[in-house]
């Protein structure tokens, strides 16, 4: 570890702590319908869109109506994306890689569509060998916007349920959705895309360039509209790379500055939503308490991952490689990492993208050390509540908050209340289901994949590493993260060529269903909780009211999150990365 590495970590946290309250304040205005500086620009256009869709934004929806709009919108998105990805041979901008890109087969497409619809962006294909510019722009990047907005509006609806003083209304789905796109996602993405291009990220619609290098060796340089997709891929915590090597590719992430900027893009909305929550409640302390909980878990992960990667791997030591920092070299486990990011830049990026549901990678998680690889897995085991995905993080965290309130209430022997609203049997049942459904999906799919021959066909490495690949695959897909121990079916990629990616049907289908189930079931539970809380009366704060905005509550909340995560996943994680961390043996 180096002083400079720690400096990068401190600088990153500082920027996050300074910027997210500002964006949070802005977003609170967007969702309470206040005027913002972009209203003159987009206001008229916004109303035009509502007329075009045939919706009345002033029509208030209860939770069932809100959920119905969301599900129908998602269904339409799924079908349209499937059609786009399967029709590559008749699309414009094809044959730009020198050969006609065929569509990936139905099973890979099923997985990819489910993946992008659910904000997961798990990829059983390599971008530059499989996808046309048309599919990337009109299919995948569009869902990067739409799936992000769906996540955010669910969080907004849950907040409205919690603060609702009368009636059952959670707002209007299409209004929240359209405002998210126009006032939040598009402006930040547009500016960010230009920032990335200014640093060397590419943005064009040209043919791949074939060159002969200075030694005369032929090389094809893949191009495309990368920066526009890169910006929303990170901002919307999507994570699906334009290229197969994702944000490690120099065209997606050209230097140390873009690496830092991209990490901020990933965390900025999840962190801001917490501050937005505090503002919408009228009690910023509530938001700060949740932010503090998330931040403690985040910084813990960064510290361990950085230390583990700086230490180097058993395979390096066995080969006699000196892994200490020497002059003008990073030292550490640089296998599967880029020189320009080094150890610290790779470790922070890894933690940032696995605490959120982003899943972008700038280094190969498969090549992380045992302990370094255990951190992303632990992050996933916490069900994406450490900042989490855009929207999903906050609504999942609020379910944990309700659980903590319930447990706290039991401990002091009073009816649990959250912000003056009684948390009763019905709510707590919904909360428990909402919390347990994701781990259930992850463990069920992992055991199915591990126990069956069809599942084992996807595994690339041997020993505990092979098990890590399996469990990571389903942890990642169930939590809608999308990062991977990329050996899992990844060994098929290089042989796939430019005629559509081949996959393992079993893994494609199991993963696809896992993602869909683990996305929409918790959304429905979160909206149901919102509906149940919306109509409740608010009782005044008394002496015996448990406070949810002080350090005691932060500790209680931390305990609940760690306990649930550890109880569900610790035995499984023990078998993979922990074994590797504890031994110097090679497998």
């Amino acid at each position, binding site marked *: 570890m180096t002083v400079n590495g720690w400096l990068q970590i401190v600088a990153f946290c500082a920027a996050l702590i300074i910027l997210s309250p500002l964006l949070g304040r802005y977003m609170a205005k967007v969702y309470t319908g206040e005027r913002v500086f972009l209203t003159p620009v987009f206001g008229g256009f916004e109303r035009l869109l509502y007329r075009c869709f045939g919706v009345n934004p002033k029509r208030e929806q209860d939770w069932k109506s809100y959920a119905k709009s969301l599900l129908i919108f998602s269904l339409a998105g799924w079908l349209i994306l499937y059609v786009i990805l399967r029709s590559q041979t008749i699309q414009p901008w094809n044959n730009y890689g020198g050969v006609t890109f065929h569509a990936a087969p139905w099973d890979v497409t099923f997985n990819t569509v489910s993946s992008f619809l659910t904000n997961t962006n798990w990829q059983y294909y390599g971008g530059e060998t499989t996808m046309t510019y048309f599919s990337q722009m009109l299919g995948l990047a569009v869902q990067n916007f739409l799936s992000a907005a769906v996540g955010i509006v669910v969080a907004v609806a849950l907040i409205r349920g919690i603060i609702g003083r009368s009636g059952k209304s959670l707002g209007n789905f299409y209004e929240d959705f359209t405002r998210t796109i126009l006032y939040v996602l598009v402006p930040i993405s547009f500016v960010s895309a230009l920032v990335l291009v200014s640093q060397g990220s590419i943005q*064009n619609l040209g043919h791949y360039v074939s060159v002969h290098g200075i030694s005369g060796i032929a090389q094809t340089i893949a191009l495309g509209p990368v920066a526009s997709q890169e910006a929303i891929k990170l901002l919307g915590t999507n994570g699906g790379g334009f290229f197969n090597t994702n944000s490690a590719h120099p065209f997606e992430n050209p230097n140390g500055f873009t690496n830092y900027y991209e990490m901020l893009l990933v965390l900025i909305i999840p962190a801001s939503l917490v501050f937005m929550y505090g503002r919408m409640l009228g009690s910023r302390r509530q938001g700060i308490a949740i932010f503090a909980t998330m931040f403690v878990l985040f910084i813990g992960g960064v510290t361990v991952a950085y230390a583990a990667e700086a230490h180097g791997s058993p395979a390096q030591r066995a080969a006699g490689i000196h892994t200490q920092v020497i002059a003008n070299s990073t030292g550490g486990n640089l296998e599967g990492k880029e020189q320009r990011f080094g150890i610290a830049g790779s470790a922070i990026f890894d933690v940032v993208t696995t605490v959120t549901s982003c899943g972008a990678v700038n280094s190969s998680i498969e*090549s992380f050390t045992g302990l370094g690889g255990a951190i992303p897995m632990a992050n996933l085991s916490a069900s994406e509540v450490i900042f989490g995905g855009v929207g999903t993080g906050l609504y999942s965290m609020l379910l944990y908050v309700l659980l903590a309130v319930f447990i706290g209430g039991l401990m002091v022997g009073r009816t649990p209340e959250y912000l003056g609203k009684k948390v009763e049997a019905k709510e707590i049942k919904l909360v428990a289901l909402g919390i347990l459904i994701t781990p259930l999906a992850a463990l069920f799919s992992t055991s199915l994949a591990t126990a069956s021959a069809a599942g084992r066909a996807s595994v690339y490495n041997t020993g505990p590493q092979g098990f890590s690949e399996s469990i990571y695959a389903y942890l990642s897909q169930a939590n809608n993260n999308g990062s991977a121990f990329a050996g899992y079916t990844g060994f098929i990629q290089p042989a796939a060529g430019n005629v559509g990616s081949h996959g393992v049907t079993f893994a494609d289908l199991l993963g696809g269903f896992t993602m869909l189930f683990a996305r929409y079931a918790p959304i429905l539970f979160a909206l149901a909780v919102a509906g149940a809380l919306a109509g409740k009366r608010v009782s005044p704060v008394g002496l015996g009211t448990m406070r949810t905005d002080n350090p005691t509550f932060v500790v209680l909340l931390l305990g609940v999150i760690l306990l649930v995560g550890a109880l569900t996943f610790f035995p499984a994680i023990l078998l993979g990365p922990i074994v590797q961390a504890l031994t110097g043996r090679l497998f």
Partner: protein
Amino acid sequence: MLRDLRTGFLSVIVFTILLGLGYPLLVTGVSQGIFPGKANGSLIKKNGVVVGSALIGQQFYEPLIGKNGKQEVVKGVAQTQPDPRYFQTRPSSTSDNDASTAFSNLGPNGKTTLTAFQGYIQTYLALNTAPDKKPYDPAVTSAAQLPVDAVDDSASSVDPNISVANARIQAYRIAAVRHLVLSTVDGLVATYTTGRSLGFLGEPGVNVLELNLALDPLTGSK
């Protein structure tokens, strides 16, 4: 219900056009106007011909000539080896194939990983050893003296950079085979070293393609 379906499909289609065509084409237009070189891949030309991208690593290899004086061919593929006259990039699982990038996916505790590392170490040490069996850089005799980037795979498989330590070791070889003064080569290394962004973000790196392009004029090659 029918009305809901109509709204659902209509909104997805409208957003697809706005966000899938409007947004990226606007970004493309502005980028091509302000940063045309970067937006098109930071391509580098030599004598008017594009030879690569400053951001994409490439192989600097020469044909492998067998004992009979002919090009070695295995299964119809002409064999190549690192060209000692050029700085070499980091190990790549795809031989710097930018049209199909991939991670190495070598695990931290893998025997295959060890084998791969041993291969990289052997290649690197062999390349940096003179025909008289002495290392070009007298300080580099075993794996323990090598910077990690020289013997660990990159992530993107097209990493354009190497560490300064790696470049300094190779500079001894370049100076010897090109009959240059070491300080001249070290000077070039310094010229093509990019420091940390804003002084503290990321790690310094030497751009191998740009450095190699600057070498040729020194020795009178074209």
